């Protein structure tokens, strides 16, 4: 390992993930909630790459690559859903879109 040990990357990724969780839970704007999900995905990707480097394997890179592809597809469809919600309800507040709530 070069000067930086694996655990530093893991700590960084844990902090990044918890920031994403916090943003997901306490923001009300759907678009910002979506951005928090991207933060969490990036934290997980960073863990994959750090382990992949530590074990000198390339499988983690492939996983991260597929996560990015899925994130692109998810962003395209998810943002289209957000647009449709805005068109029908006129709001992007997550607390106001509650027809499915039990």
């Amino acid at each position, binding site marked *: 390992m*070069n000067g930086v040990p694996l655990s530093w990357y893991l700590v960084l990724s844990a902090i990044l993930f918890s920031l994403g969780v916090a943003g997901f839970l306490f923001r009300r704007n759907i678009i910002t909630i979506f951005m928090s999900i991207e933060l969490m995905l990036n934290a997980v990707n960073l863990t994959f790459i750090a382990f992949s480097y530590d074990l000198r394997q390339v499988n983690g890179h492939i996983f991260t690559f597929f996560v*990015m*592809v899925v994130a*692109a*597809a998810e*962003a*395209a469809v998810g*943002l*289209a859903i957000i*647009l449709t919600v805005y068109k029908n309800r006129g709001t992007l507040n997550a607390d106001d879109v509650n027809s499915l709530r039990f």
Partner: protein
Amino acid sequence: MPEGYVPLFIFLAVAILFPVVALILAKYIRPDVPSRVKLEAYECGIQTASDSRARYTVRFYIIAILFVIFDVEAIFLLPWAVRYQVLGWFGVAEVAVFLVVLAVGYVWAYKKGALEWI
């Protein structure tokens, strides 16, 4: 860090520092005599008509979606391209299946008029 990337970062640092330093330096050197006409957005043009945050039409978004999807597709082709010699006809067949599936989506979007600007 793989060796050989350090010059890249030196270049990046210079690229970021140069405009910052130039702007700050210019602020202290130049004479500063503002007047109302000078402070307008365009000294010799038309006035701005509306806020720049006006809503766009959704057609831009459809084009952007198609761009992202086919961007990802192009990224998938890159590993194949660098290993073209090794993979041979097997790789060509794999990528052909991949491209045919995506071409179906492209043809569908084209037929539905998603790419037309009307």
